[in-house]
């Protein structure tokens, strides 16, 4: 159990990550807003607490592996990597620009610290399962985490992966589903209903937990529980608020796939600051 002080520090990290996301998207002029903001708490938890990693040595073999399946939320991934020391925070402003290592969708070959290349949906869980399977073959202890969206559960490849991980009881694999209920064309349950997601994964042989994706200590406790499960892979269904941290866009699916304008960006940064009384000075 983390003491309150540590939880608060992680929450502040998440706010820094959010501020960086807004600055990145304004500078880029394109990209996704709602998903990255909604996942800032979870990325802060991973990069500043959960992952066994070394930002200065991204190739370190014993590191845990974090696979981002829904590559379009990469601004939050890049921001978390930068804040934890993989590369300078200023580089975040090159997002989506010509020559940048921060491609519009993540490319492993361009940026050390990325575990794969992603964007086309439904492919991350299989890759994570492949890694987990290989590590177990070799008796290696590192864990594999796969972050995925709810919308991409509509891809058939996801369920092929779910079957595979269930068959092989990949206990070193933990998937985290960003259950924010939105996708490009609207609410997931209108576009193509996904529920009952927990029952579906249980039927595929997974241990399933539901957690508030903005409750830092509950999320970390759920990850700890996943580590303790030895018979099955674990799925955390993390309920998140798309656009979290900027009240005027929270829950609005129109913000799935567009960036804020410069004016909106300024306003959003203020909202983030209002929430926690803190803002990254660089982009104010």
């Amino acid at each position, binding site marked *: 159990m983390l003491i309150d002080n540590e939880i608060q520090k992680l929450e502040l990290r998440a706010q820094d990550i959010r501020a960086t996301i807004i600055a990145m998207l304004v500078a880029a002029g394109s990209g996704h807003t709602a998903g990255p903001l909604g996942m800032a708490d979870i990325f802060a938890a991973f990069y500043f607490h959960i992952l066994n990693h070394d930002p200065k040595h991204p190739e370190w073999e014993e590191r845990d592996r974090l696979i981002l399946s829904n590559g379009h939320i990469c601004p939050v991934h890049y921001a978390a990597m930068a804040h934890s020391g993989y590369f300078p925070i200023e580089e975040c402003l090159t997002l989506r620009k010509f020559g940048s290592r921060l491609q519009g969708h993540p490319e*492993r070959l361009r940026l050390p610290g990325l575990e794969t290349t992603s964007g086309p949906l439904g*492919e991350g869980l299989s890759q994570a*399962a492949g890694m987990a399977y290989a590590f177990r073959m070799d008796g290696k202890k590192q864990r594999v985490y796969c972050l995925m969206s709810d919308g991409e559960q509509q891809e058939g490849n996801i369920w092929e992966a779910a079957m595979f991980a269930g068959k092989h009881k990949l206990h070193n694999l933990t998937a985290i589903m960003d259950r924010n209920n939105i996708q490009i064309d609207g609410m997931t349950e209108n576009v193509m209903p996904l529920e009952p997601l927990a029952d579906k994964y249980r039927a595929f042989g997974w241990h399933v937990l539901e957690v508030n994706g903005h409750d830092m200590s509950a999320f970390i406790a759920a990850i700890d529980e996943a580590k303790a499960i030895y018979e099955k892979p674990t799925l955390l269904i993390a309920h998140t608020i798309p656009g979290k941290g900027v009240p005027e866009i929270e829950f609005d699916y129109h913000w799935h796939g567009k960036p804020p304008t410069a004016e909106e960006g300024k306003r959003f940064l203020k909202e983030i600051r209002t929430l926690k009384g803190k803002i990254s000075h660089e982009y104010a």
Partner: protein
Amino acid sequence: MRNDAAKLSADVFAEAIGKAPTRDGFGKGAVEAGKADPRIVVLCADLAESTRAEWFQKEFPERFIELGVAEQNMATVASGMAAAGKIPFIASYAVFNPGRNYEQIRTTIALNHVPVKICGMHAGVSVGPDGATHQMLEDMGLMRMLPGMTVIAPGDAEEARKAVAAAAKTDGPIYLRFSRSATPVFTTSETPFEIGKALLLWKSAAPKVAILSTGSLSYAALQAARTLSEGGIESIVLHVPTVKPLDERAVLDVARQAGRVVTVEEHQGAGGFGSAIAEFLSGHHPVPVRILGVADVFGQSGDPDELLRHYGLDAFHIEKAARALAHI
């Protein structure tokens, strides 16, 4: 005349020449590679027997992974395993692998540049009775368009074995293409094989035409050259198992010598081996090129030999095309 340096089978023109499907070469090569390197794993999608992945499974059960009928998962799991230090061979019919899972291969294997070896079985019309749905004719095109992808179509089972063993030792993503039906084994264990190198099968001092061929049809090309020679037309046959990267020097050399080129492949005429040759020669040594492939139609059920004849891909049609070009 036959190129002695190719160390072809002594029986190469005999009725009794040994036959085996190139997929057998996959099975043998995979076992060989598995013995040489513990990182080799073989993944299969419910076709262990017919892909010959089963031969590896018997030898290394702990390194064989059965995915069920899920080729998209096979490609992406393999990508993950490669990222974790393995060298995966993924085997299924070419229509599914790389047909069904093309985008997974593009994103998670090619763009991600991990050492997954994609093995497409039952390529071409010579699959026979299964018909058009299972006769993959577009795979070399799909694969050779991917940056960084090596594409190999072995000429016989012996060369297939060598190609698999060589692929296991070569970094990066590689596509290997195999066929179902037994074809003449015209090379021997002595025949040189190297990824990226073409093999001269038939040479002549004053060739009128060069026949460039890939896959098991190179044997038919060789037969055609012999018949042409008997009829007074000298030719060259260059077997090009590595479609990408091309052995540019060898291709340029035969094009310069003969001034006319016929290409042969069991694939759509568009986008495959002949296209690769034409693309290269158009920029370096433009000469007339006649591409023999399937002409923008799908296959159908039948015996392998009658299908190859029907689509104009047997020795008779190769000879006819070469003769016509030689007389321009």
